[in-house]
């Protein structure tokens, strides 16, 4: 991957950040929500990129991390009064981490397709559990709860309005992006990429590949769980639909459409997909997945580097 | 290169091919020809690109530059199955018989072609069984249960099922006992008598010099020397230079 100059990067980052900060002030409510949701799904897609794009492990199970982050937050917000934002985050991350431990274990024992299928089955296990355990999880109907306030107990408490919620989400996603970026560019990140390129050789050179994989999975799971928490706080409900494996599939779509292994790509991919969905639903109502699915399949065949790869090649010409 | 008599209109002509495996530049402009019915040898140390040359002719590897011609026609980039139907057969270095298929089924992969009636098929089988009687005995055994030598026989017999005009033979004597080596030598001779051309890649110099009319010597991805086998039999120095023996 090319090294952009730091100046170019930070300028670009600042510009995008500024645009996103201003967004809620100028956009109608519907589009404001849309942008916030893009950020949340973008965070989920970025977390998935750590595994898919950087370590070369295709996970079809990210809906499990996302879903458990969501339900973990729901648990905090429903059981502890008054609803506490930070507790919701903690519960969500712990729940996601719990799942991540299992997936991490499998990641060291299984490769390639077997790993992918197992992660898929995994998210289905959680789906079935959540769907059928109606007393605790609300089953089919999910859980709804009140949004917590931005508060530090004892110091201040500001209830969220739509703008401040957007800025909070933006802050979390922006910081997460910077953290993930730092990690992927660190020596640790380099090792992950070399695992993706050639695992046996990385092992032969002396790296404890298993350990790196475990950390990668935990990292990926935590940030995915964080996205789930944000989703819960933003939408005030948790539903089993978000744990269904199709969601994991959509996340993989975001990654591939945007360009795996780039962090920014998956976020772009999420935005692109959601925009396509929005646009096509105008014409196709709930059948938007027909044209979107066709576009996705065509992209897999003809634009395997994703949007980012495509744009890069265009810019370089 | 010495002026060896290459055929005027060769059966197979390899023209300046460059082949890459990923980023490795394996063949740096290889050229050679094989005339109809000729037995031509390709000698060289390990890793110089002999097998890659055969694979390029067979369409298993695509050259980035250059042309392969068969009966004057460019065949570069054609799929292997079309080349097999045109009359080019391939016997790879590790034999690669279908281990889970029986001996008979292995033969049938080449035998079951359009345009052959039962009589001709049986005649082909009988011929092959005359050359390789052991295969007749083992008809229903799985290919993987055969010994190394028997698998080599099967690989050659299978290629013969295609009634090819040229057979690409990659190191047929590798790992075989001396008795089998001489059997291979007889087969090559018999095929030559039938008018089948052979492009023989080998490390076994004596066998090659005896069986071939012309020999190419390769080094580092190019053909460095080319001479009639008779000349090389008398001038061992050249062989030593390129084979390092």
């Amino acid at each position, binding site marked *: 991957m090319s090294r952009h100059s730091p100046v170019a990067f930070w300028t670009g980052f600042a510009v995008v950040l500024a645009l996103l900060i201003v967004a809620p002030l100028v956009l109608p409510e519907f589009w404001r929500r849309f942008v916030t949701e893009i950020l949340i799904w973008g965070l989920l897609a970025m977390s998935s990129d750590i595994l898919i794009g950087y370590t070369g492990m295709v996970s079809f199970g990210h809906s499990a991390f996302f879903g458990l982050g969501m339900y973990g937050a729901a648990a905090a917000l429903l059981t502890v009064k008054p609803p506490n934002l930070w507790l919701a985050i903690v519960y969500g991350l712990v729940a996601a981490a719990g799942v991540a431990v299992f997936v991490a274990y499998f990641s060291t024992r299984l490769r390639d397709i*077997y790993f992918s299928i*197992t992660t898929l*089955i995994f998210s289905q296990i959680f789906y079935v559990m959540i769907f059928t355990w109606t007393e605790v999880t609300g089953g089919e109907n999910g859980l709804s709860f009140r949004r917590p306030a931005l508060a530090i107990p004892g110091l201040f408490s500001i209830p969220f309005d739509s703008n401040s919620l957007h800025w909070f989400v933006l802050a979390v996603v922006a910081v997460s992006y910077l953290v993930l970026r730092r990690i992927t560019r660190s020596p640790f990140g380099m090792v992950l990429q070399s695992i993706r390129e050639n695992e046996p050789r990385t092992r032969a050179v002396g790296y404890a590949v298993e350990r790196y994989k475990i950390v990668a999975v935990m990292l990926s799971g935590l940030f995915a769980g964080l996205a789930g928490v944000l989703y819960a706080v933003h939408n005030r409900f948790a539903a089993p639909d978000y744990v269904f494996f199709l969601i994991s599939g959509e996340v993989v779509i975001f990654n591939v459409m945007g360009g795996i292994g780039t962090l920014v790509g998956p976020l772009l991919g999420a935005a692109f997909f959601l925009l396509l969905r929005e646009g096509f639903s105008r014409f196709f109502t709930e059948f938007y*997945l027909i044209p979107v699915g066709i576009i*996705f399949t065509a992209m*897999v065949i003809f634009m395997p580097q994703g949007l980012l790869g495509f744009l890069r090649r265009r810019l370089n010409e | 290169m010495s002026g060896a008599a290459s055929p005027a209109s060769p059966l197979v002509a390899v023209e300046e091919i460059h082949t890459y495996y990923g980023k490795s530049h394996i063949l740096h402009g290889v050229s050679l020809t094989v005339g109809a019915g000729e037995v031509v040898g390709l000698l060289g140390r390990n890793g110089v690109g002999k097998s890659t040359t055969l694979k390029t002719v067979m369409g298993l590897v695509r050259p980035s530059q250059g042309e392969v011609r068969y009966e004057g026609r460019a065949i570069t980039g054609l799929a292997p*199955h079309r080349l097999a139907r045109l009359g080019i057969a391939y016997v790879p270095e590790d034999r690669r018989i*279908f281990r889970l298929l029986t001996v008979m089924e292995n033969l049938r992969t080449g035998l079951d072609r359009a345009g052959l009636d039962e009589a001709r098929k049986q005649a082909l089988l009988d011929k092959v069984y005359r050359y390789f009687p052991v295969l007749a005995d083992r008809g229903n055994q799985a290919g993987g249960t055969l010994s190394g030598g028997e698998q080599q026989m099967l690989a050659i017999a299978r290629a013969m099922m*295609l009634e090819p005009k040229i057979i690409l033979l990659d190191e047929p004597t590798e790992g075989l006992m001396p008795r089998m080596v001489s059997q291979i030598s007889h087969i090559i001779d018999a095929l030559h008598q039938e008018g089948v051309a052979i492009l023989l890649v080998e490390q076994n110099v004596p066998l090659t010099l005896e069986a071939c009319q012309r020999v190419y010597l390769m080094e580092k991805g190019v053909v460095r020397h080319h001479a009639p086998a008779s000349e090389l039999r008398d001038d061992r120095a050249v062989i030593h230079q390129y084979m390092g023996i």
Partner: protein
Amino acid sequence: MLLDQIIIQTVNGIVTGMILALVASGLTLIFGIMDVVNFAHGELFMLGAYVGVITIVATGSFWIALLVATLVIALLGAVIQITTLRPLLGRDPLTTILATFGLSLVLQNYALWQFGPVARKIPEPFTGHFQLFYLDYPWYRLAIALLSAAIIGALWLFLKFGTYGIWIRATTQDRVMASAMGIPVPWVHTAVFAIGAGMAAASGVLFGPLVGVNHAMGLDWVLKAFIVVVVGGMGNLGGSIAASIFISLLEAYASLWVSPAQAVIVSFVALILTLLFRPTGLFVPTPK
């Protein structure tokens, strides 16, 4: 009493297992020969059922519907393989999972669009029950098991004898040498995909009378089929049949104690245990 229930569930398990075997055989055949994990397999099953519905409405005959569905979806399979999968040959296997996943989304929603969300019904070709303890057990269910076994048997014979069977087995073992022997490998791939698709479609029609036909029916089956293919050993035809029955029996017994929705967890656990302890497959005789 419990023994009665166990026997009934055994019969149920075998019936479902045979249908699953029909679906999974196609999937494992496809994977064995071209390393493609066909995510859209469940949708081929579902579309087969729908074609069956339409044909029955048009002709009134279940058996014609079975035949037509098999042929139409086999053709669809061939088209899919040629347009979507051939360009991906030689690329990262991940891309085929993604492409077939994208395809499954398209096909599923296409079915939803064309047929609507209300489930359709395929009437049983013949009614009639026999007494299985306290139950009136439909003959049709047994017929399904026998038919599926017959189709799989026919497939096995085709693969074992016959020139094309040899071509398919040779290509599965070594696609490069198969090509060098004059076998038109790209077309063998297309044919196998079409056969797999046809078998999935047949399962859909056979299964239709047992449940409603709707656009989402493929999802469950594709997951189960994947589990079966892995537990049976990827590419191993006999293994996937044994695994189909095994998994279906497990689920059938489990649903004596938990709800059917939860019974699926049993198969998930079976998959995970297999991957941990016998990753090449439970029913593979010797680990490769």
